[in-house]
């Protein structure tokens, strides 16, 4: 990865950074209770949204870029009009801070996960201010949620991943055995990636809950570190508590790169977001936003080649030796 741009967000510590649907813009939410809209390619700050009374922990933009939803430490979920910055709806029923918010595909529903152990589902179209459904299966805080085509995935500190399959009306609970901080469903909807507090990212098969891969060699013991999948589901990116951006190859689980954000800053990189189309990555460390661009894949390819060649050599040597003896 190559650092392309770095710019300060000037909103305190950045809690989350999110690309919009087409990757032309990004949203950041900070500890100074604001949400900012950026054009990251030119590091242009477009608008600042206020409304939360405490730090904003997550923000998501709708498919048509017309609305935002956000949740924060004030236990509220806000539904904001992008153009005017007006707060269209304000939902407050969570008993704890809201960790994650997400629109559905049509932006008619907001899912919000909170440390009160519930996921609440809000119907934007109705005038009701009560959630249409509360998913309170978690025994502990729900740390993050991810939305698939037909299902909702949540990660919880009770060490379980819950897959609410709406189409089949089933709830699958996967016991992971680690405190889970972040969940991410792959683009092909087949796998999900879970960040744990035991310094490993685990990749599971969504269908049967089997462990596919474990990604290690980074530090994540205290904070919620977000991870991301590349658009082709080939690489996995994650922040680290030692101020690095780390990339793995999904197949081989080999760490491809581990880049320090600042040589003198070892603060945790909590949040990152992958460009929906290109091989770009936005990360945030403290108050700065970093835009990364992927380098040519020469190194990795070589690595992969070497890997295969080694395999073959081993095989052939065995065979040859057998033949001669």
């Amino acid at each position: 990865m190559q650092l392309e741009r770095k710019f300060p967000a000037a909103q305190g510590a950045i809690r989350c950074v999110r690309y919009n649907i087409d990757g032309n813009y990004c949203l950041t939410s900070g500890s100074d209770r604001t949400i900012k809209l950026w054009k990251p390619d030119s590091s242009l700050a477009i608008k600042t949204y206020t409304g939360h009374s405490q730090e904003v922990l997550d923000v998501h933009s709708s498919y048509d870029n017309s609305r935002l939803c956000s949740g924060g430490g004030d236990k509220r979920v806000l539904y904001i009009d992008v153009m005017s910055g007006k707060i269209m709806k304000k939902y407050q029923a969570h008993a704890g801070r809201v960790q994650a918010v997400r629109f559905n595909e049509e932006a008619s529903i907001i899912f919000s996960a909170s440390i009160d152990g519930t996921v609440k589902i809000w119907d934007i179209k109705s005038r009701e201010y009560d959630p249409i459904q509360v998913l309170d299966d978690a025994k502990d805080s729900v740390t993050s949620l991810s939305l698939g085509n037909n299902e909702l995935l949540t990660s919880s500190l009770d060490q379980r991943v819950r897959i609410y399959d709406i189409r089949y009306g089933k709830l699958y609970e996967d016991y992971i055995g680690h405190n889970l901080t972040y969940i991410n469903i792959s683009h092909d909807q087949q796998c999900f990636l879970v960040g744990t507090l035991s310094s490993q990212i685990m990749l599971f098969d969504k269908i049967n809950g089997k462990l596919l891969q474990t990604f290690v060699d980074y530090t994540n013991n205290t904070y919620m570190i977000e991870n991301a999948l590349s658009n082709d589901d080939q690489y996995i990116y994650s922040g680290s508590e030692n101020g690095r951006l780390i990339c793995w190859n999904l197949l081989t689980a080999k760490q491809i790169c581990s880049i320090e954000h600042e040589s003198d800053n070892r603060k945790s990189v909590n949040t990152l977001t992958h460009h929906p189309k290109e091989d770009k990555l936005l990360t945030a460390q403290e108050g700065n936003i970093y835009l990364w661009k992927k380098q040519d894949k020469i190194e990795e390819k070589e690595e992969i080649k070497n890997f295969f060649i080694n395999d073959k050599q081993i095989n052939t040597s065995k065979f040859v030796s057998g033949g001669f003896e």
Partner: protein
Amino acid sequence: MSSRYAGFGSRNDDNESNENFVTIGTHFDPAEPTNSTSILATLGRKASKLVDLSSSNYGYDGKRFHGAFTGGFNAGFYNTVGSIEGWRPSEFKSSRTERAGKRSYEPEDFMDKGDFSEHGINPKQIKIRNIFDQNESVTRSVIKQQSGTSNQRTNEDILRDMIRVKTLSIGKKILMSMGWKPGEGVGVKMSRKHRQKLKWSLTQETPKDRPPSPPKSEEEEQQQQQQQQQEQIPGVKVYGVAMPPPSFQQTIKKTSRLDDDNDDDDYDDRLYANINLPPLDYEVHFQLQKREHHGLGYKGLESLNLFGHNNLFVQPSIEKQISNVKIRGQAFGVGIEEDEDDKDLFAEDDLKQYDYELTTANDNTTDIMRQKTQENNFVLKFARYESISMSVVYPPPTIPIDFRIGHRFPKSAMPPPPPPLPPPPASLSNETSVNEPPKQISIKHDANTRGLLLGDLSFLSRPPPNMSVPPPNVSVPPSSKVEVTPVKPTTISTPSLEWDVEKERSSHTTPTPTNTARTQFLDAIKNRFTSSSDRIEMTERQSLEVALESDLKKAVSLNLYGDLTRSTSDWKPNPLLCKRMNIPNPYSDDAYNDSKESKKSRRQLCSNLFEHLFTQSSTDSLTSSEQSSPITIPPPSSSSSLISNTNETIIRSSTITPVIPQVQPSSVPKSEFAPIESFEQENQERPPLDFFSAIFDNQHSDDESADEQEVEEKKTDDIPKPINPQSSIVSNSSITKPLASSSSITYQSDHSDSSDSSIEEIEVSEKSSFVYGPAIPSNLPSRSKTDHDNSIWAKLANTNAQYEELKHKKKHKKKKKHDKKSKKHHH
């Protein structure tokens, strides 16, 4: 070498020297195969081809459907409209001198060129009409030509061939193929004689009048005789037209005979006697001679339908069945004064016209069905489906030998069940009369209390039925011989969480904002905790969970993710969620039960709730008494005394609170601290035995308790109660508790309120040692007395009292044990 030219009016094949002749038109090659249509048709097509420009350019598989009216492939002029110039609007000019003529439009005005073409809707082409034969003529001519009879076909030939008349209809063709010839009749062949007879009858007169085949000689003789007669006897008058002269008659006869071939009839008869001839070609039509003097078209009476009846003389069959009635016809009852002459007085109702079955006349399908079934001789009906499988009969379960009817509760929790079970009807009757006589209230349960005891809270939605019911604590009668412990013994054994009660109450009474907020909060958090009441279940469940968890951990440690770590359960998404997500609901819409989610609110911030709690606690003493129910405010002194004894604070708090309401007058201001009180009430939940006693109320103590109740009521009404009796109680308790034995003594002897209360306390304190779950805060009792459902709780208390009465004997036995325990506790 002969070259033939097809030119109208020009013929130059024979004479080659006549080449000067002008040739008009194009010659066509007769050898050219013209299979499909006649030459004229080809001619027409050629012409149309020449004319129709679009046909050559636009070929959709050679088919040419076009025109605005046919909706074809191309419309208008080269797929545009009108002509090369497009639609030319017709000009309209009208001036004073030149008036515009009225123009009438024909359908053709709106048609395209294509519409007139061969496949258009209005083809303007030369075609062969139906009456002319198309194909046969051509083929015939071709055959002729090939046969070589006439090598050279002239144009006339061709034209003649074209205009061959098609005479034969298809029917005729068929008949001819069957051997019929034109001029014959159709039918069975008949003998010549018979045929002749027929013919004669038809051509001459009716067969009756004249002999079928009069011999010629006779006729002639007759005629001659007639002539002679006419001539001879002029007196004979002949009406009508005068007879023609005999010579003319002769000629007529001759001609007729010629026509009919009658002249050689005899000969033919003899010759062809055995030969059958086909029937006559013409229709047999009988003309009857008019022989009577009636008017033309007159018919006799019998066939006439005089009065509109079908038949005057035949009675309808159905009427026959009802033949008992002798008076018939509509004329019955019609008097002179009625002037309706047009009525047919003699008409009778034809009963056939009435329906005797409930069938719809128009129901053709069923009729058809019926017909069909009758025709096919099978029966249409529904037969009951008979499943082959027999119903499974299971044998009755085998009862274990040591099984006893009825459940035995653990001894500690329950006294022996009341010996006689009250008959249910009695209790029912009592239920209805609960409100009027206070006597019975003390004894009987009504539906609400029973429901409450049974855990059915549905009645809470109704308004509390009886607010006038005395508070539970007054249930101790001064004169009662039997000791009653108003405090429920169950308080300790089955405490449930505060929010349960909160929820109940909030649903029962109109909630204050603080209440709703609190309940919301409690509601939200409730399922995060488990109440200590179901502790055993809990422990079991916990142990199960622990086991499961360990299994999971083991699996995880072995990296065996998958089936071992996954658990699947049903989850019902909100139908609305499915709708919004564009996913069909896996369950029916009704299946979703959102009773869990209290629709109202939860909007309020939880922090608000806490704030409420805290602010209220600070303003505790200032709270006003809004509720009508009697409420105790523990004076600060009492609370302090309670607190002072650190060891027993918990116990006391639990013990005291139930006592307080008894002593407190209703007018006493109460604290608004419902939540804490709810703790108390929670504690009063019944043990299983109480359920029992509540359901099967014992009749024993009816009278006594009733009396008690009365007394209690009087008390509450008349005597203002000390505001802070608690201190004394507390002091009592503090004294009595260590001296368990003494309390036991007082227990029996004392009938005063204080003594009773002390007894209760002791008991409670003893039981309180069994309390599981979180310790109750010491200052709780002070706030405890906001009771919205006092009536219910009063009833509960009453029932409890009765129950206690029954129970007290057994308590004697128990006491020693309890005392020991309490001693232990204190020291």
